């Protein structure tokens, strides 16, 4: 699975992308976030407040119960802030 991180999620985790082998019991977006947070360190800091974390599975916004599979591209990022300032 390819994981992509953007904005302050990227900064806190300290990576912009990584490849992981998905554990068999991680089958949803929510489970993936839990599992990542369990790694501690920057992951725990980045994912401490899930209300400001958005997830895209294969470039589409996905809800917590969305299924994840080993060949997905999954991106974690804060809410988008739009293009320009208003």
């Amino acid at each position, binding site marked *: 699975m390819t994981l992509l991180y953007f904005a302050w999620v990227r900064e806190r985790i300290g990576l912009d992308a990584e490849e992981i082998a998905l554990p068999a019991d991680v089958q949803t977006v929510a489970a993936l976030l839990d599992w990542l947070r369990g790694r501690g360190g920057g992951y725990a800091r980045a994912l401490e407040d899930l209300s400001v974390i958005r997830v895209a599975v294969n470039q589409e916004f996905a809800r917590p119960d969305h299924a994840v599979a080993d060949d997905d591209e999954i*991106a974690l990022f804060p809410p988008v802030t739009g*293009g320009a300032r208003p």
Partner: protein
Amino acid sequence: MIRVQREDFDIGAEIEALTGGDREIGAVASFVGITRADAGDGPPITAMTLEHYPAMTERQLAEIEAEACRRWDLTASLIVHRHGRLEPGERIVLVVTAASHRRAALDACAFLIDWLKTKAPFWKREETDAGTRWVAARAADDRAAERWQGEP
């Protein structure tokens, strides 16, 4: 047509390339967004960096452009959005809509820019003399984009 690019754009050249010679076009509306230093409640912004997720950003820009073409009878449309570090006074986004009649061009242009300013998958980091910070999403912008729900 959509483009996400680091480079600046030339408004007149973009409009001419999009619309030149098309005899169906009677109205061309355009909008240019420019980076401002004014931060409202904080120190002036000295620069802004736009980060994006290229595959998703391009997909979503293409989707919103297709949505505008479904809602209005457009002859041509263009979105050019810059990413990277921008200083105050620099152009950041261009929307051009062309139609036979003015109402379609004007309304589609306003619709697209409302969406781009609020929903486009970009993250902004602002630099000031006091440091840098990631901008949080704004509820007021969500309301502006919601104006379009159910229309036209």
